[in-house]
């Protein structure tokens, strides 16, 4: 795993999905406590570039490095 996700923080704005260069981020099908469908990452396709961390307004991502 290259990027850790804090599911509770996600507000489903979709900026990470839009900006991900590998298009490996998608919405999951389980609601979080706030009532949003948090994002999930396809670990096979992820390159750990950190673009999702850069554009996320809510601190969902932690790039492990």
């Amino acid at each position, binding site marked *: 795993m*290259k990027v850790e996700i804090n599911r*509770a*923080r996600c*507000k*489903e*704005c*979709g*900026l990470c999905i*839009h*900006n991900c260069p590998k298009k490996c981020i998608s919405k999951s099908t389980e609601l979080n406590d706030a009532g*949003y469908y948090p994002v999930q990452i396809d670990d096979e396709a992820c*390159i*750990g*570039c*950190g*673009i999702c*961390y*850069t*554009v*996320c*307004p*809510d*601190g969902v*991502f*932690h*790039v*492990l*490095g």
Partner: protein
Amino acid sequence: MAATRERKVPALVDKPMDFCPGCGHGIVSRLIMEALEELDQLDNIIFPIGVGCSSNLGAGLECDRLHCCHGRAGAVATGMKRVSPDTLVVSYQGDGDAYNIGIAETFNAAYRNENITVIVINNTNFGMTGGQMSLTTMEGQKTSTSIYGRDCSVTGYPIRFPEIVAREFPGAAYAARGTVTNPANINKLKGYIKNALQAQLNHEGYSIVEVLSPCPINWGLTPVKAMERIEKELIPYYPIGEFKKRGEEQK
């Protein structure tokens, strides 16, 4: 695979915040903290926070801050800085707070060349109260108080404050405008914020960074479309870049 480096939200803002989905405030507050972290000043900071959506920052911060009366963060920051000149004072305001309500305080702080840093989040309306027209609302933009679109012949034209600072106040240290529309602009904006903080650290004088930020809820757009609106409509009127660089003489 290229080596990646660890990136984690700085602990001072690592809390859930109440901003709307897709709001730019979350990105900017994180950038300020990253810049402070890089300058090794995380324990030497106080935020005078304006009223409006910017007030939500207070709920997510783990450091000193003061919620000012509406628009008066410029005056409060002046007091803070004069009492403790070695502490970094960063006022965090929206466009309605800094320009509409508090233009006198913002303007006077710049005029006196107070050694403070002002971060203004410009989303072209009063976001928290329901999207009313502000000084930065674009011509023709529909808001809840300009339902036929803003008529500039009656209400005046959108204000470009960093340009005024750069042009009219010779002593000011730094004036810039950035945006959060894509990763490249976000990284540039972080550089602007870091420059502004560095200017204050070196006692160079007044520094201001305005940020063009989306307001998806009040604009009635999705977060991605709101970012596109900034690129298409706002950036041609509000150019991004540094209007006054550090150490640059007045032309």
